């Protein structure tokens, strides 16, 4: 195995580790929020530092490969994608952290009624599935895992588009829950952003696999 | 390292070192011995041992050179005036001439009275010159023993006569041999240079691979044939051919020597010149061709200029081989020691002279010394040649190192 192959494998492993860590973070943030468990929430806050460290390491290692191994073709595309995926995954990690922060300071589990009307659980489910699928696509270098992502994004966009209206209705119905509802709104926003980041990752993965630049084009047409 | 091993290595190194000095030692020994024997020629008078030259007391010529002596006895000089003396015609007297001057009774049966008669004769004959064994010179000699000048270097080199065994005085002028050597060598180069260069160029530039693999061994074979065989071939084929072709009395000529030597110098020239041509980097040729030069232009404008020093080395080495060659020349050039400037006349080279005459000389005699002196001249020729090769090589190295 050549030096560059080793380095690239190492890079991939590191990114996968970070990725699965972020997947856990998101799951724990969800759990803490829905079950009102500040301990789990605190765990997420602590682990956030690990995510940041991963990001720095992967950035540095990518630079090294670029500088020292002069990658071309698939190697070059890989490193370029890793750099961008790294950034996106880290941002998702940030969101999980932010959600955990909300859960940490909450007085208890989020009331069922609010969850119901904001579709938060479905949104969590969608975002986490997307995260997992993109992970699978990268790990197995299999673009088939990416196909469903672009359809799923709509499931995050729609609640987000309706969020302002939904939340303001809920506030006028239950003014005493205003704080909690505002938190819910910010979480909705974050989950929607998470979806966007995952789509960015998917685009990078497509660039890596096929060298097709799908950014800013009508994604769905290209993919399906 | 153990002590035994260290000593062993010291010994081996010592042996290697001493072996390496043997060549230098030999060269030095050669120089020493050539000069030791050769220098004797200039230290002794060339007359035979125990013989003296004497003249009348009236004679004013102080000393006499061997050339003058030879001229006197050859009757080329007949009056002392020609040597700056008085106007007396020269009368030669050697043992062989006695009967013309003295009667047998006058001399006595065993020449007992000869010294006394001689005194009388010398007194009365101012123009006499005697060449006699010392034993006949009376104690109260009325004449004067005239010293003979030693041979000078100039006489030796530019003397036109080589009569090493003539009496009373041998003559050692090597000019004929120098001329002969230079002419034969020049002729050989004249023949070998165009053919050698053409062959070298043909082999390295024009001929295909297959032809080259045939020609190269052929040229090497040419180098391997012993010189005496070349001489023999020249003698039985070339000499009669030249004789018939030019209608000469003898076919043994400078020309025959030149051709035979030329053939012998060919392989050296071809091999060295071909190496030189081949050493021209392929990329230089390609660069020239790529600029639209023809092969001929590339050859003359790039390859040959690049190989210039190697080619000069080839020519000089070929010359060296020709100058020093002995047997072949000895057999085909006719062995004439007369000065000759024509290619169709016989001549003799320095090495051939040594080879032809050394066997007849006595150890330590003047003739023996003269041949060694001749060898010194030859040796100097070759040293000059070797040094010029060295100089060219070094200059070439410098040029290449700069590149």
């Amino acid at each position: 195995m050549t030096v560059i192959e080793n380095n690239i494998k190492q890079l991939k492993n590191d990114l996968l580790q970070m990725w699965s860590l972020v997947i856990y973070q998101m799951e724990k943030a969800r759990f803490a929020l829905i079950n009102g468990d500040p301990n789990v929430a605190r765990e997420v806050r602590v682990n956030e530092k690990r995510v940041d460290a991963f990001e720095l390491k992967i950035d540095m290692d990518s630079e090294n490969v670029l500088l020292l191994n002069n990658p071309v073709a698939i190697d070059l595309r890989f490193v370029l994608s890793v750099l961008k995926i790294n950034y996106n995954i880290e941002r998702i990690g940030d969101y999980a952290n932010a959600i955990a922060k909300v859960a940490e300071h909450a007085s208890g589990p989020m009331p069922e009624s609010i969850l119901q009307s904001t579709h938060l659980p479905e949104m969590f489910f969608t975002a986490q599935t997307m995260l997992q699928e993109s992970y699978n696509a990268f790990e197995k270098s299999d673009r088939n895992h990416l196909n469903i992502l672009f359809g799923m994004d709509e499931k995050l966009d729609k609640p987000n588009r309706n969020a302002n209206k939904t939340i303001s209705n809920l506030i006028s119905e239950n003014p005493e829950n205003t704080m909690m509802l505002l938190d819910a709104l910010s979480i909705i926003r974050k989950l929607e952003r998470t979806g966007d980041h995952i789509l960015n990752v998917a685009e990078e993965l497509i660039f890596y696999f096929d060298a097709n630049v799908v950014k800013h084009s009508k994604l769905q047409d290209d993919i399906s | 390292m153990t002590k035994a091993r260290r000593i062993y290595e010291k010994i081996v190194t010592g042996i290697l070192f001493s072996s390496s000095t043997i060549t230098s030692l030999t060269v030095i020994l050669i120089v020493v011995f050539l000069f030791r024997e050769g220098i004797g020629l200039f230290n002794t008078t060339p007359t035979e041992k125990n013989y003296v030259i004497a003249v009348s007391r009236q004679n004013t010529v102080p000393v006499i050179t061997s050339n003058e002596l030879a001229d006197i006895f050859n009757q080329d000089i007949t009056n002392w005036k020609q040597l700056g003396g008085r106007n007396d015609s020269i009368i030669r007297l050697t043992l062989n001439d006695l009967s013309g001057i003295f009667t047998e009774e006058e001399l006595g049966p065993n020449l007992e009275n000869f010294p006394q008669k001689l005194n009388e004769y010398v007194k009365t004959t101012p123009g006499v010159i005697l060449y006699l064994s010392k034993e006949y010179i009376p104690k109260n000699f009325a004449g004067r023993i005239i010293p003979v000048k030693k041979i000078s270097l100039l006489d030796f080199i530019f003397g036109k006569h080589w009569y090493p065994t003539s009496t009373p005085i041998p003559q050692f002028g090597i000019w004929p041999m120098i001329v002969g050597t230079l002419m034969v060598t020049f002729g050989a180069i004249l023949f070998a240079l165009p053919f050698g260069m053409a062959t070298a160029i043909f082999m390295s530039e024009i001929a295909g691979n297959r032809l080259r693999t045939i020609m190269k061994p052929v040229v090497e074979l040419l180098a391997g044939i012993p010189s005496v065989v070349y001489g023999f071939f020249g003698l039985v084929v070339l000499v009669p051919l030249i004789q018939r072709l030019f209608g000469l009395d003898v076919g043994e000529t400078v020309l025959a020597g030149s051709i035979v030597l030329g053939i012998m110098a060919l392989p050296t020239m071809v091999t060295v010149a071909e190496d030189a041509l081949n050493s021209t980097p392929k990329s230089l040729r390609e660069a020239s061709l790529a600029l639209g030069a023809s092969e001929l232009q590339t050859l003359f404008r790039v390859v040959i200029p690049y190989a210039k020093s190697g080619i000069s080395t080839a020519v000089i080495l070929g010359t060296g081989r020709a100058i020093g060659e002995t047997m072949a020349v000895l057999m085909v050039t006719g062995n004439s020691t007369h000065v000759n400037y024509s290619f169709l006349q016989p001549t003799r080279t320095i090495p051939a002279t040594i080879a032809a005459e050394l066997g007849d000389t006595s150890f330590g005699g003047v003739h023996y010394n003269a041949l060694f002196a001749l060898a010194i001249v030859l040796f100097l020729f070759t040293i000059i040649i070797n040094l010029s090769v060295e100089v060219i090589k070094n200059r070439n190295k410098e040029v290449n190192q700069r590149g």
Partner: protein
Amino acid sequence: MDTKQLKQKIVFTIFGMMSFVVVAILVIILGFIVFRGIGAISWEFLTTAPKDGMTKGGIFPAIVGTGCLVIGSMIFAFPVGILSGIYIHEYLPENWWKKFLRMMTNNLAGVPSIVFGLFGMALFVNYLKFGDSILAGSLTLGILALPVVIRLTEEALKAVPDGLRLGSYALGASKIQTIQKVVLPVAFPNILTGLILSIGRVSGETAPILFTVAAYFLPRLPESISDQVMALPYHLYVLATSGTNMEETRPMAYGTALVLVSIVLIINLSASLLRRKIQKKNKMN
């Protein structure tokens, strides 16, 4: 075709013709000697001494004499030449001493053979009082062969890649061990070729033996190294130039020339065959 091409064609054709002449010369000389000499060759010619004023009989003593001289000279020249070649190439750094030794070797190689003869006569025959003998002749020929042996040994050593030496040193071998175990075995075939070539040169030389060993006529075989011998090249010279009856000695001369040429050429051919074999072997590796 334009002038440039035409000129090239003409010049190249002239060069080709001239080199053809060179090859033709060799063929003519060899052909002549073989053609004329083959008739004289017989078993008797090769195995008996000359008789009847060298018009009859053979050249056996001359063959033996040449053999003695070759062997004698090689006994001197081989060890000295090889050792000094090793010393110059393996031991000496590029300094003035090495340059001096090289120059001396080149000078010695350039000395005309007749000067070797004179030197041999002055040193061995007269000064050391060996007299005209195999000893004096062999030493003279040995000195003549010395620069050839040295130079060819050096060439052979030069052909040994430096990497081998460095590899050996790197394993802790000393200089002598490296030379003995690594350098010499690799260089040996090439050195051998050189030695054979120098034998070829020595066996054809006439001038150096003229005054040191060669006998005009000596029908018996030598008994010790202080004997004179006949030698093939000198015998040919004698037959060609000073026979009592030129007409009758000619066939003997042709025969002698053929034998001499054959011996020298066989030696040279075997050297070049050996070299070719080595080259082939090296190529395969």
